[in-house]
């Protein structure tokens, strides 16, 4: 009797446990994972003048099931050099911006981790504050600074250094600086987290054994912060590849990026199948970085 009661209780506990697991699992499967299957599906369908603007994959007529797998969208991406150029432009720009973020962000995080304890919280908040304001507005700020009649050009002309304005807006330069500016906090934060957690006795040991500062940095500090470097770089690189707002506001005709091309295929051309194919190829390109990021992040989560 008692046994059956406790086994009933155990069953209830098991059931409760399953329900608790199911809540986030079902929500995320439905609204995060399943949509990717639909992107794959639509990328294999044919564009049609209809609502929604794509044709079916399966059709049953005359007792036969017709399966349409249209690879045309993918072949189309290969045939038009615009798309390949846009993918290349995105990866290149994102890579340069990530490198710049790392070169600027690492010393910043290092200085923060070494600052006196009472300064650290304030510095941390100062780094995070910009990312709590508006992303759109922070990118927009650079329009007023870099444009031909903008702040920098007015200043340089004003002091007589140049006669005609430098063209900085709508170039590779403006897009890169926009990405570095918008994503810098995401580079600094994981680096800082790793650098503060570092055991200082290791540095002292190295110094006691006669290692020079630079040597200690390269042989001890840098390897111990690899996790932060990977996490920070991926947090910048992956979203930057698909960035839309920055190339749209700061870019020009010679700064093709795939996020903007996808947006235009979808909103201007209303070609959902090609937009889906563009998204699938982008996802494929980013699969390795995403898995890499996940490996470091899941270590943090457990």
């Amino acid at each position: 009797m008692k046994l059956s009661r406790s086994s009933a209780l155990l069953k209830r506990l098991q059931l409760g446990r399953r329900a608790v697991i199911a809540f986030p699992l079902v929500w995320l499967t439905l609204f995060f994972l399943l949509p990717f299957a639909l992107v794959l599906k639509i990328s294999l369908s044919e564009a049609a003048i209809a609502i929604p603007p794509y044709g079916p994959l399966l059709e049953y007529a005359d007792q036969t099931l017709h399966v349409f797998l249209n690879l045309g969208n993918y072949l189309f991406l290969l045939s038009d050099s615009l798309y390949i150029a846009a993918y290349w432009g995105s990866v290149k720009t994102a890579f340069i911006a990530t490198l710049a973020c790392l070169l600027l962000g690492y010393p910043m995080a290092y200085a923060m981790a070494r600052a006196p304890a009472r300064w650290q919280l304030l510095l941390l908040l100062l780094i995070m504050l910009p990312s709590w304001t508006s992303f759109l507005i922070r990118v927009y700020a650079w329009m007023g600074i870099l444009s031909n009649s903008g702040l920098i050009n007015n200043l340089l002309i004003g002091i007589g250094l140049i006669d005609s304005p430098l063209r900085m807006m709508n170039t590779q330069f403006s897009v890169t600086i926009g990405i570095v500016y918008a994503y810098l906090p995401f580079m600094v934060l994981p680096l800082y987290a790793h650098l503060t957690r570092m055991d200082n006795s290791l540095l002292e040991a190295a110094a006691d054994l006669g290692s020079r500062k630079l040597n200690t940095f390269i042989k001890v500090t840098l390897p111990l912060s690899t996790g932060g470097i990977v996490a920070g770089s991926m947090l910048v690189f992956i979203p930057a590849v698909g960035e839309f707002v920055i190339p749209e506001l700061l870019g020009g005709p010679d700064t093709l990026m795939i996020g903007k091309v996808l947006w235009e295929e979808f909103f201007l051309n209303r070609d959902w199948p090609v937009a889906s194919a563009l998204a699938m190829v982008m996802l494929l390109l980013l699969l390795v970085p995403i898995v890499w990021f996940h490996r470091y992040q899941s270590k943090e989560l457990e």
Partner: protein
Amino acid sequence: MSMRRPNFSTVMLVLGLLFLYLPMFVLVVYSFNASKLVTVWAGFSTQWYGELFQDQQILSAVWTSLRIAFFAASMAVCLGTVAAFVMTRYGHFRGKTALSSMVTAPLVMPEVITGLSLLLLFVQMAQITGWPADRGMATIWIAHTTFCSAYVAVVVAARLREVDHSIEEAAMDLGSPPVKTFFSITLPIITPALAAGWLLAFTLSLDDLVIASFVSGPGANTLPMVVFSSVRMGVSPKINALATLIILTVSLATLLAWFFMRRNETRRRVALRDV
């Protein structure tokens, strides 16, 4: 850190902070410019603030965005907290890898992909179930909840890992059922992390342009959507005024948070010294 001879990293930190703050400072200064040409200074004026508060489109977009952000952040805290709890406390279970992938992937997923994929889902759902017939606030709420919950999960999981697990185990050993243990022991300890997660989700939802543009319908315009359609035409002093108000609000909130965190820290130090 030596104060006499600033080293390389300290110089970089100062330069980096200047880089982060100067552009925002420029926005604030030019929001008080009398000239419509944003880059030419023509004297001090607050006229753009007056125009901002008469712009019905912006005001109603602010209200829409605030409501969506409030509900999305609240739901994301529920979802993200449960996800974090399951991942840190449940040991191994079927679907754990899937869950942890679905929690970390939204952190980096390009917004155009998330936006497009969710739109296709909503269209497909409408075809099969008849819902959502119109896209708007509800669909934006679902989209924002989903990506915000990933951020909440990361924040809460970090806190759960720090918390001493043995208190919860002791309560359960003494016969407290798991649900009661969670609400009376775990939840009070992680409340600061929930608040931080909620605020983060709130700002993320307020800020999102790309995902909202994909999943919204003709009825619902969020603030970033209105700002975006204005700034792609060029620089506008009204947007500078709006930016100034946003920067001011966030700075005040941060200052307040800093003040309270520092007070708590000092109290803890005093308490430790007394022990």
